[in-house]
């Protein structure tokens, strides 16, 4: 067996029925070498203090539930090894830039609304009947958008985004990247319908290209690149439309 070591973890607590503002609570956790931060939280919940609340599910970095601030950085706690923090003390807090519901649980309603606003589904003028088979799409066409389809909606990019921290109307990295993902999909014809959200003042133009979203993304989606590409495409379209105001249908 791996040797057990003990780490001190200070967790932000907020119980809205009992307190007006967040407090801190420190736990000592004996951990195995292969434990992740989430394992420590589960150990606390199961054996020390069942009142600590947080979200989690898959424990393999794909469901997107367990994002939190770990020592000030947005992390998937199921993919952050405790040994990388030991022997220092750790601080675990809910993702910043979101209202706190309880303890480490944040309110993500805002994102859910923004996700829907970018129309993240295939839009076509005419749908091909299923009986006629699949739309052909070459590996190169798939590659155009594949990276942006990897978003697990974990919200780390929103926690890292200084603009979203100041301006909550900002559509934000993940939603823009997902809208862009459909715009780049060879099967889609919905670019125009998404533009009024993505290319609006609250869309790409709010972004000051700090790039922190891409740094923290656990799936290498690179939302900053999505925003940059959209800015270029939107500018090009706008310039084109000056030359050919009636010839820019798509």
């Amino acid at each position, binding site marked *: 067996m791996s040797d057990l070591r003990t780490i001190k973890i200070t967790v932000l607590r907020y119980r809205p029925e009992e307190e007006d503002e967040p407090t801190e609570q420190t736990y000592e956790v004996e951990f195995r070498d292969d434990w992740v931060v989430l394992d420590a939280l589960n150990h606390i919940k199961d054996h020390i203090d*069942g009142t600590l609340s947080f979200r989690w599910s898959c424990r393999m970095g*794909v469901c997107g*539930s367990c994002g939190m601030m770990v020592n000030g950085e947005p992390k998937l706690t199921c993919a952050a090894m405790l040994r990388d923090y030991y022997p220092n003390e750790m601080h675990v807090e809910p993702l910043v830039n979101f209202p706190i519901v309880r303890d480490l649980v944040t309110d993500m309603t805002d994102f859910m609304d923004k996700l829907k606003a970018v129309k993240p589904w295939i839009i076509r003028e005419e749908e091909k009947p*299923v009986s006629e088979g*699949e739309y052909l799409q*070459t590996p190169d066409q798939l590659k155009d958008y594949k990276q942006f389809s990897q978003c*697990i909606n974990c919200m780390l990019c929103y926690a890292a985004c200084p603009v979203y921290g100041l301006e909550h109307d900002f559509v934000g990295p993940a939603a823009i990247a997902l809208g862009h993902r459909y715009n780049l999909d060879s099967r889609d014809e919905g670019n125009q319908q998404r533009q009024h959200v993505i290319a609006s003042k609250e869309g790409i133009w709010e972004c000051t290209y700090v790039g922190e979203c891409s740094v923290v993304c656990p799936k290498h989606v690179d939302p900053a690149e999505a925003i940059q590409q959209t800015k270029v495409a939107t500018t090009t379209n706008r310039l084109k439309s000056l030359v050919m105001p009636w010839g820019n249908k798509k």
Partner: protein
Amino acid sequence: MNIPKHDVLLVGGGGAGLRAAIAASETYRGADIGVVSKVYPMRSHTVSAEGGTAAVMREDDNLDLHAYDTIKGSDYLGDQDVVEAFVKEAVDEVIQLEHWGCPWSRDEDGRVSVRAFGGMSVKRTLYAADKTGFHMLHALFQTSLKYDAITRYDEWFVTSLLVEDGRVCGVTALNIRSGNIHAISAKSVIICTGGAGKIFPFTTNAAIKNGDGMALAYRIGCPLKDLEFVQYHPTGLPGTGILMTEASRGEGGHLVNSKGERYLSEYVPGKMELGPRDILSRSFIHEQRQGNVFEGPDGSYVHLDLRHLGEKVIDEKLPFVRELTRNYVGIDPVIEPIPVRPVVHYCMGGVHTDIHGATPISGLYAAGEAACVSLNGANRLGSNSLTECLVFGARAGQVAAQHAADTDFADSASMVKMAQDEQKRIETQFFGNNGKERVANIRDDLRQTMEEGAGIFRTEDALKTTCDTIRTLKERYENIGIDDHSRVFNTDLVNALELGYMLDVAEGLAHSALLRRESRGSHARSDYEERDDENFLKHSLAYQTDGDPRIEYMPVTLTRWEPEERTY
């Protein structure tokens, strides 16, 4: 109190639930659909499926071949009419998902690619690299957002099914965020809550998979069918149980024992690494008994060797495997073999439904892993389950919507009372007593006894002990105490309610396994090593009673394939 009303209400928002919701809303204009999910739907466990989705897509394949593979894989316990409907509708369903934007991997000519999978005679598994479930779930969820007829109840947890005059007329659900219990009225309710892998200690399954929906149905008298059949996936990471997809073998990976041998030549010489999961998992135990395995801190393991595939294939076809092994065990499969062992993966059994997804209880439907439509019989073939979510999710959505069109809502006043009673029941049971039993301790003991009695190999004695232990655990559960007595986002309470579901499903499972005195598919009895078609070519049905569950049986539907010896 205003009670929300929906023609069709989904319990669960994963692959099957979302497919059913879309199907229901497309069945007739004006159909009003609700989706209750204890997590945001894109967190559902469909997200973790890796390898692919089976359907007949190529010239070298045909429907009968897919049907035969599935039936043989099921060890002849699959209902053959169900299998035939499945393989036929699978094709349109995967194309429909393609039209909805699923980023299937592609061949150079633009067609969706197919890969080899265990127990399938030809390449017929569509995939999106090795994140197929993730891409399917997000494509379904994002597509569902365009349907205004679908109302979501995200992070609501169903605590009971409401029954009036013998028919299901809605649910009570805990709004996790507020802590209030509400009634939701529905003409049809579809259970799509996934499996119950978390009743075992080592599993690929996510934390949320506790058999919720199975227990909800069981508690109102609906039988759970073929529960004894639990699939072990042969390649999970020791300890965490993180799944190393079967696609890693489909793409050519080898399983190697501690002597450096590809030991499957002893067990499935004709298929080797592409043998079905039940046989591969048992082969591991045989190797373990012969001392041909490695020993580590999390028990025995063998090696999954991908090195000969090369970095390019691994990065293109199996990027998630590389990401997971690097993150969780510090191993790069390009240069080192991966330690793997069998871990619980999938429940073949579940809520008994007919070919349309209807249960014996009026107004109640089920689909996906939570259901047992009898597609998978005694052993599911890899890559059939994602397709099952689509085909039978769609079917259940359609029939539930048709039922709703011909039905009236139940009386709201009585439902208000039912919700109040439910709130009182939960507060009394979990907040009112000063019980000393911790959720985690009972849960750990349950998992241990399931592994000991209902694991890969089973015996009469061990199963009896497990049945007895579960009975004791249920008594201990009556004396449960939780730390958290607050309302807002009380996950302590949710976990306690989930534990109640787990105990019910475990009870049905262990008793069904005890009475099936034969070996078939995933159910391997050391004391009854042969398949016994004379006595057990039949489905088990577990009914809840005040004491031990009552187990009944019903015949398997055979159409064109006579049971034969199952060798590969």
